[in-house]
């Protein structure tokens, strides 16, 4: 279904291609066609055997499976609450991860505590896995700060808004790990749109040349705001790695088990000195780019409906139910926990105070700066001038 809908968007290339269009093997399709991702769980919730990647999830316990499910459900609930809070005027903006829960939870749960994450601004599920309190993510979207958590507290860097910049930071950090002789790894998140950025290309070059222990985790959610993936690439994104001399793998990004397994494999490569890996998590941005976006201007409902059938949470639920790994009590309890999370987030955001005016001048420099001091004093004098008016 996906392949068809993607192909439908792609213009015919040439008469020559047209003549062979009937042959399945040679027809020129979109860059995403005919590249089946690694999948361990079908949309129907059936476990598919995979000789290469099974070993990374073979020892997973029912409890851990329920944990992955819980992570995804709570992340989605938090995300929905944030979207509502934007609609209520409590947040200025929200970038929803709806549809990408499996890619984020699967990769996030593959990490060790000493690994380091460099996210984009949409990695709410990964933040959850790292133990960053969800309410901390909302400060920047409410406009009270530009990043409200200590990156070193959870080895989860601040959200990077400029597209692709963080892939170089991840690479540099990974180079540092090598210099330290440690066996930690770094994971850099980015999207299909970012794959066109020079910084991403340079991070591939640097990480390959220095054999840096970094996993490039590209969530190909099919859309960079209004531009489909074929506006970014003529080859499947995972194949980009080949030209840089390291492996690339496409994984079903709506399959939490496969995302977990493939990321574990890539991290293991990093830890054992085999260098960088590109993982393309093939997924779909179910919602708008942000709350400011209107997807109806550039894409139709059919595509979204097709992806809804492949929902990451639904398929794990089917699997849990079919394998008797979770009972009604579990789902009911989780439902209650979700609502409690929504309430907690709602209340925390509404209680979030505006920053002190003088926060403008704080932390501009680590060692201070004469001009900042001077302007702070001018600002203070200006504000104090109103005190006499007794307003």
């Amino acid at each position, binding site marked *: 279904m996906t392949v068809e809908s993607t192909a439908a968007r792609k213009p015919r290339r040439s008469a020559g291609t047209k003549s062979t269009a009937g042959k399945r093997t040679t027809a020129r399709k979109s860059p995403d066609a005919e590249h089946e991702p690694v999948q361990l769980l079908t949309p129907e919730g059936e476990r598919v055997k995979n000789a290469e990647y099974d070993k990374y999830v073979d020892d997973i316990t029912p409890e851990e499976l329920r944990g992955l499910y819980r992570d995804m459900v709570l992340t989605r609930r938090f995300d929905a609450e944030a979207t509502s809070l934007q609609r209520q005027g409590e947040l200025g903006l929200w970038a929803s991860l709806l549809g990408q829960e499996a890619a984020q939870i699967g990769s996030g749960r593959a990490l060790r505590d000493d690994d380091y994450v460099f996210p984009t601004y949409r990695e709410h599920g990964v933040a959850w896995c790292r133990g960053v309190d969800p309410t901390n993510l909302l400060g920047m979207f409410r406009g009270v700060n530009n990043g409200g958590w200590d*990156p070193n507290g959870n080895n989860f860097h601040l959200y990077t808004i400029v597209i692709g*910049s963080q*892939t170089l*930071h991840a690479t*540099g950090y990974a180079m540092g790990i090598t210099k330290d002789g440690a066996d930690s790894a770094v994971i850099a998140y980015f999207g299909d749109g970012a794959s066109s950025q020079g*910084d991403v290309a340079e991070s591939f070059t640097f990480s390959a040349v220095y054999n840096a222990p970094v996993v490039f985790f590209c969530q190909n959610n099919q859309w960079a705001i209004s531009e489909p993936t074929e506006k970014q690439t003529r080859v499947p994104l995972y194949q980009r790695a080949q030209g840089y001399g390291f492996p690339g793998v496409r994984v079903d990004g709506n399959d939490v088990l496969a995302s977990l397994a493939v990321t574990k494999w890539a991290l293991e490569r990093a830890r054992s000195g085999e260098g960088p890996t590109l993982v393309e998590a093939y997924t779909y941005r179910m919602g708008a780019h942000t709350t400011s976006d209107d997807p109806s201007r550039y894409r139709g409902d059919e595509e979204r409906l097709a992806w809804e059938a492949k929902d990451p949470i639904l398929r794990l639920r089917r699997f849990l139910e079919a394998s008797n790994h979770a009972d009604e009590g579990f789902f009911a309890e989780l439902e209650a926990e979700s609502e409690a999370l929504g309430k907690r987030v709602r209340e925390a955001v509404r209680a979030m105070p505006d920053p002190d005016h003088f926060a403008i001048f*704080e932390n501009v420099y680590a*060692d201070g700066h*004469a001009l900042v001091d001077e302007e702070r004093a001018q600002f203070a004098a200006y504000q104090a001038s109103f005190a006499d008016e007794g307003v």
Partner: protein
Amino acid sequence: MAAETTKNMALAKAINESLRHALDADPKVLIMGEDVGKLGGVFRVTDGLQKDFGESRVIDTPLAESGIVGTAIGLALRGYRPVVEIQFDGFVFPAYDQIVTQLAKMHARSLGKVKLPVVVRIPYGGGIGAVEHHSESPESLFAHVAGLKIVSPSNAGDAYWMMQQAIQSDDPVIFFEPKRRYWDKGEVNTEAIPGPLHKARVVREGTDLTLVAYGPMVKLCQEVANAAAEEGRSLEVLDLRSVSPLDFDAIQASVEKTRRLVVVHEAPVFFGSGAEIAARITERCFYHLEAPVLRVGGYHAPYPPARLEDEYLPGLDRVLDAVDRALAY
């Protein structure tokens, strides 16, 4: 008399010695850039460092400026103190995004939790007969960005110590090296306790007019002061050393004495550092000034081909002309 710890060396060698000292003193200090390793840099500023400190600490990078600065940021996040070289002034722009949006802002973005002690070395300025993009003075483009500190030494002694201080700074520092002065020799006292990094220095006292400059223009201003002295004019010369923060107190103190100010830099006059100095000194010294603050610098045109650079760059006569105009008020 020069002490035993004082040596006479070229400005480029002084930076080399300073980097060597920093590498020796702190295992977290790294050198990164294009050709900085085996070759020792195109100006030999990092000569011999890779040989003595190894490829892991003196790193030949791929030819990608954004990558150099971006990975330096990542290394700094891991606890390193990278000193990166941008080979020439005109090549910094691929890294401009990383410098402006990431390097400058991460400390504030993290509410002070992340520090990025990265030094970006940039050989800058003209006067060496180079091809396009090898003679520019982009310091104002960085001074406009909060979160960065901008310095430029004018002599070997300052180059040695200012590099030490830049590397010790927990803030990112853009270190502009006056490439036409790389081969000028000067006294370097490796034991002397230096003054603060961001303070200006009076290099020549005078009473009639203040010349303010930094980097390559300090030497020119000293020559101007010599020439003016022959005509009976007493010019004070101030070496700013730092463009951000900028030592306005030192300029103010000088101007309150001389009542006239001419600012000299190679960068284009339009929106250059001279404009900021003129505005602030006019505000601070309005009743002391006998003449408007005048500026001498590059024109609002691309840096010209080498055969024209002597016309484009401030020279002795152009600065003297400005001095005459200021004194004529």
